[in-house]
């Protein structure tokens, strides 16, 4: 019944300006019970993230009192939970997943439904690279609701002050500062080698700067081999950090056992055990030691390598739809609005890729900086390992994660690493 009405509503919303949009949305609440039904949502967000997303859902349910959304958190097991649910024929109505590769897999199996109805609305609020990201064989299947800026390096203000260095703007400067930091008595790097994925993030940030976004795209689709010279250049550049073992907190062995929280705590603790850690905008939420933003820790963008232009590598959690119902459509359309994103942005720990979310919505300076950089970036690329088939870029203990951990163990083996990566990629992309 109301499918056409909803798409009309969406069309209207898409055409309306920001304020008019709010008016249309509030108009929906007058048409009470226009859409109704129960929605189930299996999502990656747990803990504080789950609580904050619930606030967004509450706002939606206020607008659509006929719709009840039940959110179930599956955390890191989301791919397993969803795959099992799909195989068993009982998927939830909607889901949020961290791996675009999984979205692609589901789209290929026709397990998820296209969300083309919201394309215009999303195009209005997101830069084109986000649309490309969610599109498979001509249809839009996913919308990233929660983004992550992974081109950030977090540092201990005290360590930088002791060493008398300032956040570096170039890679050469970063390496020089690292030496100074070491001489000051604080190891420069805290490397999260225990999880494999932070290593892939460093590779991607280096690669997009040494090889450029065009090659980045080719490599992400495996239309360029991992044995390509550009990959080796990037690995060599990474080796300048991994090879400086006395400058890594805990040495290579320590780094290989450090998980995200450990590597962040090393930098955030007082006195700092290490000066810098390279990871995304979620770093402050990963810390389990108390530290103050700006005075205790701070952030700088990933430096330019040999004059490369500023670029952002990021990630995000994609919203997908398993059952095409009016209620599900209404919720997706709602989530595409800056209004929905603003609710979570205000609560913190959230970067919206929605470019129309105003910077003032973010509660602190650091998030404002990283989130705006993400939504407005001219050169933005999605985390390459997340785009790859999970067997290569998304599984602990195998593929890129494992091979880069081996590379951290032995950073001199550039050629061997490149050919191992190529071998693993060839098998994974074939399937």
């Amino acid at each position: 019944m109301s499918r056409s009405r909803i798409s009309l509503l969406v069309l209207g919303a898409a055409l309306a300006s920001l304020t008019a949009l709010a008016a249309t949305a509030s108009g929906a609440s007058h048409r009470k019970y226009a859409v109704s039904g129960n929605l189930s949502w299996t999502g990656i967000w747990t803990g504080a993230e789950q609580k904050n997303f619930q606030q967004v859902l509450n706002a939606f349910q206020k607008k659509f009192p006929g719709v009840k959304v039940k959110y179930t958190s599956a955390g890191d097991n989301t791919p397993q939970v969803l795959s099992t649910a799909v195989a068993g024929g009982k998927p939830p109505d909607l889901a949020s997943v961290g791996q675009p590769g999984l979205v692609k897999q589901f789209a290929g199996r026709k397990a998820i439904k296209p969300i083309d109805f919201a394309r215009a609305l999303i195009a209005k609020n997101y830069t084109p690279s986000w649309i490309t990201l969610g599109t498979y064989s001509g249809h839009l299947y996913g919308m990233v609701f929660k983004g992550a800026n992974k081109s950030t390096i977090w540092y201990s203000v005290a360590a930088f002050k002791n060493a008398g260095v300032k956040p570096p703007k170039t890679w050469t400067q970063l390496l020089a500062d690292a030496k100074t930091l070491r001489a000051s008595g604080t190891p420069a790097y805290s490397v999260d080698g225990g999880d494999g994925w932070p290593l892939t993030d460093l590779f991607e940030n280096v690669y997009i700067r040494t090889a450029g976004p065009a090659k980045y795209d080719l490599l992400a689709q495996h239309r360029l081999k991992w044995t390509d010279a550009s990959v080796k250049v990037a690995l060599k550049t990474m080796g300048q950090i991994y090879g400086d073992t006395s400058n890594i907190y805990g040495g290579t062995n320590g780094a290989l056992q450090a998980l995200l929280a450990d590597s962040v705590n090393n930098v955030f603790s007082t006195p700092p055990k290490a000066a810098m850690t390279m990871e995304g905008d979620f770093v402050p939420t990963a810390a389990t030691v108390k530290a103050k933003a700006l005075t205790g820790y701070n952030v700088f963008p990933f430096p330019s390598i040999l004059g490369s232009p500023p670029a952002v590598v990021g990630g995000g959690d994609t919203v997908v739809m398993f059952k095409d119902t009016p209620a599900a459509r209404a919720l997706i359309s709602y989530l595409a609005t800056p209004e929905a994103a603003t609710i979570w942005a205000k609560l913190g720990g959230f970067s919206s890729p929605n470019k129309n979310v105003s910077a003032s919505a973010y509660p602190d300076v650091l998030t404002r900086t990283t989130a705006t950089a993400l939504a407005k970036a001219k050169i933005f690329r999605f985390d390459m390992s997340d785009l790859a088939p999970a067997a290569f870029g998304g599984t602990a203990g195998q593929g890129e994660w494992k091979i880069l951990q081996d590379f951290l163990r032995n950073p001199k083996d550039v050629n061997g690493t490149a050919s191992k990566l190529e071998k693993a990629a060839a098998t994974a992309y074939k399937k």
Partner: protein
Amino acid sequence: MSSPSIGAEPPYAGAPPDGEQGRGRAYLVTAMFLAPAAILLSVWILYPLIYTIWRSFYDSSGAHFIWLDNYKTLFSTDTTRTAIKNNAIWVAVVPALVTAIGLVFAVLTERIRWSVAFKIAVFMPMAVSLFAAGVIWRIMYQQEPSRGALNAVSAAVVDRVKQPGPLSDAFPSGTKLTGTPQTGIVLKTPVRPGSVALLPLTGIPPDQVPAGSVQARQPAPKAGAITGAVWRDFKPGGGTPGKLEKGEVGLPNVTVVLRDSSGKSIGSTTTGPDGRFVFAGVKPGAYRTAIGSATFRQPYGGVAWLGAKLINPAIMIAYIWVWAGFSMVVIAAGLAAIPRDTLEAARTDGATEWQVFRRVTVPLLAPVLSVVFITMLINVLKVFDIVLSVAPSSVQANANVIALAMWRTSFGGVNDFGLGSAIAVFLFLLVIPVLALNVRRFRREV
């Protein structure tokens, strides 16, 4: 075997003489009694079994029949091959060790005073789930002595024996020093009386700068003496390496050694608050000034239990810790059932305790030992959760076992149910011979 089966008697005894109908009713009753078990078994065991075998011949999407390709992949991929190899090690080592340790505990507990308390302590881990036990061991295995209990203990011992140096993080600055903190640091060029030896060090965190140190001062040359300074060659921004600058502090109480041209130590002195030191009354000649390695000795760094090399033994230790209690209790029960007079007879005949154990106790216990061994064999073949919880993800590939590979392949992001099913079938085939052994043994016992 020859004794009449009592369980089968009543239906036949109570069967009416009019053959056909009565037999039909007997079948019906049998079927009714069997039905619940049969239904449960087919739903939970038979159907999944057949489906898994069928699924293992299809690709990851489930759309294409690919014959034995999944099995080929199983034996040609590094991940699964490591898993198979590790499982083989597990099978070779763990069941035997668990049985042996259980036997030793069982025999010992018969002789000690607080045997009940001891048994409770050994059996306690059985009450903890394997996953939780894994988490406990993972924490105990942490490499940093400040975090892992095992390394904390060894660090307390090692650091007591070999005390860490006062400047354990320092390393030479500039180009004029040779050697490493491990071997001791020596000034490259020889010094003669009347000249100055500068020994700049760096890499010293602000909180490790010795208390009472002041701005380093350039030592003045002195006739007949070797003067010099040891200082923290660092000021914010770095400064010029090797040059004594304003803002750089001296390192007090550092032991400096003077060596003659043959390398023999002929004297030592310690530095003052501004880092200066003097060797007075030195005879003419060429000397070397050095700081010994004791100054730089690192605190004990801990054993990398969770590193790639030790991860398999580390997990096995945790696993044995859990299962030793089970083994001990079962064997102790068997031990209690051994006729005492046999043991007494052996002792009366002059057998030593070891001979009694070896020739009488163990052979009499053989059936119980084989129960424990075979149970452990099956448990070890399907070992899974403890590997998942002890091994950090950076070494999980090194610690992989078949069941873990099956789960990772099917659900761990790869989502290849085809290959996952093939691994499951392979594991099933491995368990069958052990099961057959077990079933045969059961029959024999009945």
